[in-house]
């Protein structure tokens, strides 16, 4: 159904805009950032060079590795929490409600992504404060008060605010698409609800579960707001390290080292997760 050959002006008109724009303003910045990690800073000015000094400085500092381990740990914890917390909800949405309710539920889960994340974090700050509402409610039950702000707990709450709705959506969509006859077959063969979940639902919905977890990891690992405002920024995560290094002074090359390390880490994790997700269907 193509009246002429592929390379004409008409075709190019549609093909080029994204190529030009994303090359100039997406690829070029990323490539430049990698190059910048080899630049020097002399007299508070950046000098183009090709030196390993930033890499050696950052990699030889304990605080860098502390931040690295902390960021990985928090993101991994967030991923486990989000996956575990989301699963029962997604299961209910996939199997126990009508299509109509499921559509509405997903619509409502998208809404938070169009409210300011900053404002939601501010709300959590107020909710979790020493004299805040969470402690007020717990006080009625005769518990607390607990110190929640400036702890890893608060950071994780922030990460959940960021990622949980998305993880529920992705899990729900993947589980809703599972062939119902598979589940009936499991029941007919005498498997209970739990057994069916473990040996039918989870393997069949594997891709959605892993993609959800991966998104949670990427978002948490790259988030600056939760660890800074809720977690108290001490010790700093890699994201806080980047902002501090960039915003205070001219040490952009060192910030670039941190950013490139983050990117490499994420690529390895994303690649392994996707390989694992699509690797050999469950027997």
């Amino acid at each position, binding site marked *: 159904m193509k009246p002429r050959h592929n390379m004409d002006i008409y075709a190019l008109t549609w093909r080029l805009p994204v190529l030009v724009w994303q090359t100039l303003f997406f690829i070029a910045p990323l490539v430049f950032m990698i190059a910048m990690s080899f630049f020097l800073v002399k007299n508070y000015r950046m000098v183009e060079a090709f030196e390993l000094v930033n890499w050696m400085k950052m990699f030889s500092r304990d605080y860098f590795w502390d931040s690295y381990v902390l960021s990985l740990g928090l993101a991994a914890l967030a991923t486990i929490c989000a996956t575990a917390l989301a699963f*029962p909800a997604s299961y209910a949405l996939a199997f126990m409600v009508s299509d109509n309710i499921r559509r509405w539920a997903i619509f409502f889960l998208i809404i938070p992504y169009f*409210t300011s994340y900053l*404002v939601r974090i*501010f709300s959590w700050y107020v909710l979790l*404060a020493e004299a805040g509402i969470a402690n007020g409610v717990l006080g009625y039950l005769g518990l607390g008060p607990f110190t929640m702000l400036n702890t890893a707990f608060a950071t994780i709450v922030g990460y959940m605010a960021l990622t949980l709705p998305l993880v529920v959506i992705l899990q729900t969509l993947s589980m809703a698409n599972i062939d119902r006859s598979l589940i009936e077959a499991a029941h007919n063969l005498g498997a209970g609800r739990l057994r069916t979940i473990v040996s039918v639902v989870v393997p069949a919905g594997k891709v959605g579960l892993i993609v959800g977890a991966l998104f949670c990891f990427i978002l948490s690992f*790259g988030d600056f707001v939760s660890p800074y405002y809720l977690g108290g920024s001490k010790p700093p995560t890699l994201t806080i390290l980047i902002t501090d290094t960039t915003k205070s002074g001219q040490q952009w090359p060192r910030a670039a080292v941190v950013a490139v390390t983050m990117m490499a880490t994420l690529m390895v994790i994303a690649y392994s997760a996707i390989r694992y997700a699509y690797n050999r269907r469950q027997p």
Partner: protein
Amino acid sequence: MRRDRLVTWLLRIYLALIFLFVFVPIATSMVFSFNSDRFPSLPLGGFTWHWYDMVYKDPDTWEAIRTSLLVALTSSVLATFIGFCTAYTDFRYRFRFKGAYLALALLPPTIPLIILALAMLAWFSKIGISGRVGSIIVAHTVLCAPFAMAVIRLRLQQMDRDLESAAWNLGANELAAMRHVVIPFTLPSIISALCLTMAVSFDEFMIAWFVSGLNKTVPVMILEILQGNVDPRINAIGSFVFAVTVTLVVVAQLLFSAKTTTTRS
């Protein structure tokens, strides 16, 4: 099957708790934007417009809103144009390296914003376009184009391929077919993409904070207030931003669902 009913009920309660977790902060922020106490806590203080009034009378707010609107409008138009071109290319053509082409088009949202922000700050300074409102527009266009592309591509999926060739057979050239067939067909999704990308741009703060220099958008202003003390002005601004973005999303959603009900030609 009493145990089954119990499980069902427990799951329902659990589901309600999850939704509570998601919506409590949004509701809190709205409620406390009208609360007279300086530090938000229970029981509530009196009703007040004070925070809205403070925000309303602050010239910085209006400056920020103007910047945000300018950025959101311009970058949504640019992003939707780029998204349309990409979606049409993907719909109609097959060519070598198409996989790489699509990856390039869809990749930006998967890179953490903080990394993009640093990279763009450095690159924009290098080529001399940093610290302006235009820098935020350029950056937001990069970020928003994939969303526009996805929305428009979904609509094109519903278009019969023969529709375009029918127009050619009737003597329309490609441009005329584009104008009289493809664009009218995708129009709801184009408007939907405009709203969606505007909402994305209106909320984005990380890149805007890095590349904007002294030109603050609304979320950047929130970020800076947040760095000070607990300040209920954030609730007032936040509720306003929420109203704007939810309106955009609802319009987008209405058009998006309108398109599934129109005839599939």
